[in-house]
């Protein structure tokens, strides 16, 4: 139960960041959506999202890892995993 709540909260934080950076609405930002395909974000916007996640959530996303984060879900997994580590 707790885990599901945390998951929802993290998704809404990331969705808010995507909305702020791209102008998409937060409701469109769902775990199965891909950044460059479904959400049609350009590469600079994707770096900007990673940068904002780093600023606001405190998880650093190196460039080589960012290239492997294709969907919103991938980013959620990455942040969750590294938030636990730190």
């Amino acid at each position, binding site marked *: 139960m707790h885990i599901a709540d945390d998951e929802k909260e993290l998704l809404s934080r990331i969705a808010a960041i995507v909305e*702020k950076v791209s*102008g998409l609405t937060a409701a469109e930002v769902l775990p199965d959506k891909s950044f460059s395909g479904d959400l049609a974000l350009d590469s600079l916007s994707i770096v*900007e999202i990673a940068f904002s996640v780093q600023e606001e959530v405190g998880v650093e996303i190196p460039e080589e890892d960012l290239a492997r984060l294709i969907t919103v879900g991938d980013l959620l997994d990455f942040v969750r995993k590294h938030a636990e580590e730190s």
Partner: protein
Amino acid sequence: MVTDHRTLGYCLFRSIEFPFLAEALMSNRDISQGGQLNRVVVTGFGVISPLGLDWSDTWSGLVQGRSGVGVISDFDVTGIPVQIGGQIKGFDPSAVLPAALVRRTGRTTHLALAAAVAALHDAKLEIEPDAAARVGVIVGSAYPPLRAVIDAHAAFERRGFMGISPYAFTAAGVVGPAAEVALHLGARGPSASLSTACATGATCVGEAMELIRSGRADVVLAGGADDTLTAFELAIAARAKALSRRTGDPERASRPFDRQRDGFVMSAGAGILVLESAGHAERRGARIYGELAGYGATTDAYNLTVPDPAGVAVERALRTALTEASAAPEEVGYVNAHGTGTPLNDTAEIKVIRRVFGEHATTVPVSSTKSMTGHMLGAAGAIEAAVALEVLRSGITPPTVNCDDPEDPAMNFVAHKAQHHQVDVAVSNSFGFGGHNAVLVARRWTGGGDGPVR
């Protein structure tokens, strides 16, 4: 094929003999009207100034002789000997621009974007996709986006590579105002950011005129924007001894043509005009502010910051613009002076007005609206072109406030209070560091559509 040098020499000789033909060939002019140039009119103003967030508030402030200069409250001025400026009050870019655009751009670009949107709205013009290729954008700034550079550098120093925003690179560039305006509005004709320091706004309007005259665009959004009111920029301008030190008396600090003047007052602002070919404007039934009939651009090549006291190049810019407009000096009914309130500028400008206008120099109203707005740097020339056009329409010449003891008492500096004059031809002077001079001549519009430039 062997190049015949004699033929080349002949061509050069002929070009000199027929400069108009040479110019027409070199600049790819539209010669569908038998080589005649399109007339240029202005159909929209977008202005943000220390006097107001739109043209209507700015103009009424100017007519009332209101000062937009005050004590700086937007940032800490401790330790800087100049603590006054013309701040823009209550501007919220998020109210008119998408959040993502506001986020990736700096304040100068926000001002340019908001002014461009307002100008198009004022012109009742929408850029349709099939006409977009005929719409250009020429918008510049006198200063680069230093605030963005400073912030990005601070983050880099503090946290290294990962501290830098991915948009720092684009935000630090100088094409922001033109590029973002073209992108946001979907303008696909020629676009560029041009800078001539404090003459930027007039240069952008003048070069935009050329795009329309030559047939390379039907519509151009033209002007300038600057927001240099940061502690660092105020400090460097003060260090250059350019600014008035009348810190205890902000509304009286900008005193063009007054003997007690001691420098200019730095302000923020944005001014974008919608320029159209007269034919384009008349076909769509647009409201026309007036015609841009002449543009003269020259360079002092005298000193980086000091204007040539003899004003030789300024005089040539003014005479060129008048000749292009087929206007005799005595036809000019209003001059919006550059009039910064620096000791050297105003003396040199008076000399040129005296020489060019002769006896008419003591009757033609000459005012500096910088006495009220302060010096909006890259925006000044464009906003002052709007002033010249509004004078044609309204018959009201805004005053030079604080001109208590005029350097040339025989001239009409429209001291303190606005005056009524029927004006058919108005001049706007703009000069910048680097010796850049740009003079625009506006004419009352009396119809005539596609007809050629006189």
